[in-house]
């Protein structure tokens, strides 16, 4: 059984989900407000946290912000449908993925499995050799990254995204492939989370000396990781 924490103020929904996830081999624990959810998440070792953005008292985004200061547990956000701002903010604050509410529990299970598969993959990667490329150093084993000698703090999804880029510099990688690599799930229509992750990665690494961006968007195709001087 994999233990997962659900932070959602809807107690009835929590009970139903508990029952449903039980049958899918998840051990679901629930918290119904922000502060208690944060305490629980920090006190126990959950494999993943499912966090509703709309919480009474303390907003889900605040919970996420505080959680990220101390823990790198994978976080799946539940956002109100149509509230793009919450979604983008959440991903920027370090959530690993999001699911618009109301969601199909099958989809929730699929997303959770994707996140867990990705985090458990750590260590048994194809190669655990460090990668050096144009000032960026990536260590798969410790999952740490330095840029021009300075350590860069990346979320799980951003790390996997960068790893994918560094193994294929100068090649155009489609958004579908990037979603699969970084989020561990196929891309769904209207899904912009990969763009937010790329944007975060860009911001955290910064441009090359000559103001040249490291990651370039190719319209209709995907993204490409550029080497210095490449256009």
């Amino acid at each position, binding site marked *: 059984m994999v233990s997962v924490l659900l932070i959602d103020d809807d107690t009835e*929904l929590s009970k139903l989900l508990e029952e449903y996830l039980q*049958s899918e081999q998840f051990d679901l624990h629930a918290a119904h407000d922000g502060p208690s959810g944060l305490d629980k998440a920090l006190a126990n070792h959950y494999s993943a946290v499912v966090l509703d953005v709309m919480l009474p008292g303390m907003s889900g985004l605040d919970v996420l912000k505080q959680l990220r200061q101390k823990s790198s547990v994978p976080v799946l956000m539940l956002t109100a449908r149509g509230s793009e701002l919450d979604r983008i903010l959440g991903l920027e604050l370090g959530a690993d993925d999001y699911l618009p*509410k*109301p969601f199909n529990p099958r989809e929730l299970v699929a997303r959770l499995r994707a996140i867990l598969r990705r985090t458990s993959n750590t260590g048994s990667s194809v190669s655990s050799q460090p990668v050096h490329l144009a000032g960026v150093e990536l260590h798969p084993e410790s999952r740490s990254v330095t840029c021009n000698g300075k350590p860069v703090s990346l979320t799980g999804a951003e790390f996997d995204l960068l790893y994918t880029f560094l193994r294929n510099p100068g090649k155009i990688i489609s958004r579908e492939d990037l979603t699969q690599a970084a989020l561990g799930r196929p891309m769904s229509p209207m899904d912009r989370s990969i*763009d937010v992750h790329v*944007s975060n990665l*860009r911001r955290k690494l910064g441009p090359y000396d000559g103001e040249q*961006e490291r990651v370039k968007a190719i319209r209709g195709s995907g993204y490409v990781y550029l080497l210095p001087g490449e256009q």
Partner: protein
Amino acid sequence: MKYRSLFLKIFMSFWLTMALTIGVLTLMSRISNTESLPERANRGPLREGLTLYSEAAIRIYEREGSKALEEFVRRSLQESGTEIYLFDAAGTPLTPNNAESVATVVKELQANPQDQPPRLFPLFTGATRATWGRFVVSATGKPYIFVARFRQAGGPPPFFTAPRIAVSILIAGVVCYLLALYLTSPVKKLKAVVQQFAEGNLDVRVSPQLRSRQDELADLGREFDHMAERIAALISAQKRLLADISHELRSPLARLTVALELARKNTTGKGIAALDRIELESERVNSLVGQLLALTRLESGAERVPPECVALEDLAQQVIDDANYEAKPHHKEVKVLQLAACRVRGSSELLRSGIENVIRNAIRYTAEGTAVEVSLTCPPGAAVLTVRDYGPGVPEAELTHIFEPFYRVGEARERSSGGVGLGLSIADRTIKLHGGSIRAENVPGGLLITIELPISPSPAMVQSVAEKMPVA
């Protein structure tokens, strides 16, 4: 500054009035100075005084001799500043004479000896001194010529000289400028605040900027603040209501979906079909709630357009990619005819949903095996996006109604098409919110929807936005 601005109007009209006043005053004083002085010298107290003077001078000369006369002249000059000259009838000076104007006067008097006083005599020889002369016959019957040079009696020396006029008009200009500034600056502040308020910043108030004033303009500012307070309260109440409705409607739906999946796990055979139906219907309710909320948000004014610069061609490409993904299973397709680079100002999320609704609508109605054609062109001043489908089209009379909420065209376009009739309304409100227009027209074998948006003038902002939101 605008040509017709209130500031300019106040400033120019006040200044013009002041300049005119100065001009009229100058003219009036000129007229009184030039015309009245010689007249005054020949009548009234001035003439009386001068006559007494002349008689006194002659009497002193005749009785006490030229020494006493000189003493009298000296004293007169000392005490009143009046120079006195006395000549005999032949024009021989009896007093020391220097001034040239005096000789001229004497000559003129001699030329017209019959012209006995009183007589008008134009005697202006300088700005500050006037010369006055007459024949006087003494008590002993001897004729003399008496001339006096005196300070211009009456009015002060002319104040309105040309440089002084220029300076006073200039000073008047400065005063009028400050006055106009004082009157119009609160209006300007008010305008800036109203503008910010209209752009969606509901927290701006006028009062802090007009605190030092107590006049009608400050009252106007306070009234505006009252109004802003109320509007802000109404809008935030509306937003809260929308959020509450959204939450209250969706929570049961979320539970329903989970319960449904639980039921599915324990159901076999015929029950499955019923559960599928429940899922489909709950999905419909869900999307209806979402669309209704989107529409209400757009119409309530709770949604505001950020001044972001959006690359419309990238946005269109994303929507088209997504739409293609959904259209493929139905053997339909979205084809791009042309995508010109267009920058518009607004919210990329709102614009995306607007364009998406139009393209999805087209996919819904285009016949199987056909392609929806999208093109984006950028004629000067506007971005034009056209979406053409190969469907049944819409009767001419109903073309304008298809943007109304829940409007359905005939029975042919009913629920089987899958929509609830809100997509185009949302698109319409979104485009209008961005200052654009949307219209529909029938073309051979289908419907053409044209979206026009004003393009954004500043390409500098695109860079920063593109950096924030990468698009592929």
